[in-house]
């Protein structure tokens, strides 16, 4: 598919916008629809789109397997670390209001980091599953 000039050009135009849109959805989850899950899926979709047009080896060079596997675990770990930060700073597990002298700002910080954790895990898992399905040869 990478021989087709239309697909290549359109892909190169669209993929940065898709990634921007994913970041927009992530950070505007506070003020409009959105949040970690949607942003994670859109990020994975952007990389899958790249893999569909330019081939799986090119996508593997862009986002290596080791990075994806790390992302899968790092997001869940980040979420739990935010919980432990709440524990260490004096409240219960996953309390956000102790993270900052102003409780409302603490809530903001907690929600921000938790959503990033969700984004990383969801996009990592979706991408890893795609790599596994697409990279497996067909048995006869």
């Amino acid at each position, binding site marked *: 598919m990478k021989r087709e000039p239309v697909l290549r050009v359109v892909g190169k135009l669209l993929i940065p916008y898709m990634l921007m849109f994913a970041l927009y959805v992530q950070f505007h989850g506070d003020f*409009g*629809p959105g949040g970690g*899950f949607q942003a994670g899926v859109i990020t994975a979709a952007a990389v899958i789109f790249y893999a569909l047009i330019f081939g799986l080896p090119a996508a593997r060079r862009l986002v290596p397997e080791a990075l994806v596997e790390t992302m899968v675990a790092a997001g869940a770990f980040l979420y739990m670390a935010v919980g432990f930060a709440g524990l260490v700073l004096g409240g219960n597990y996953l309390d956000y209001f102790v993270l900052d002298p102003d409780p409302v700002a603490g809530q903001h910080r907690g929600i921000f980091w938790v959503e990033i954790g969700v984004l990383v895990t*969801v996009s990592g*898992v979706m991408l890893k*599953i795609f790599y*596994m*399905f697409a990279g*497996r040869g067909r048995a006869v």
Partner: protein
Amino acid sequence: MPAFASHYTYWITVLLMAAGLYIVVARGNLVKKLIGLSIFQTSVYLLYIAPGKLIGGTAPILSEAFKVYSNPLPHVLILTAIVVGIATLALGLAIVVRIREAYGSIEEDEIVAADRDAGDRE
């Protein structure tokens, strides 16, 4: 009848649910069964979200301009349910791929027959 207009959404949900259930039970192809399962799950999402809607309300994003909001609680539950649904679908498809490699087919009848033959031979 007065029940029709007010309960119409529930009945559509029930129809979709029954269709999903029928696909899971009556079709032998494993991939189609998984698609039927996901149809069943989406009908349940509808079942949860439809009662939360208030006519004249708006999406539950607080703002000065609106007074009446639709219920946000089912949205939260269903968001989690959707993500868990795809996790299930992904795992199910991985198992189907392995079954195909082990048995050579993804039709339930052929797989059961192959197991029975293997059991007879032992």
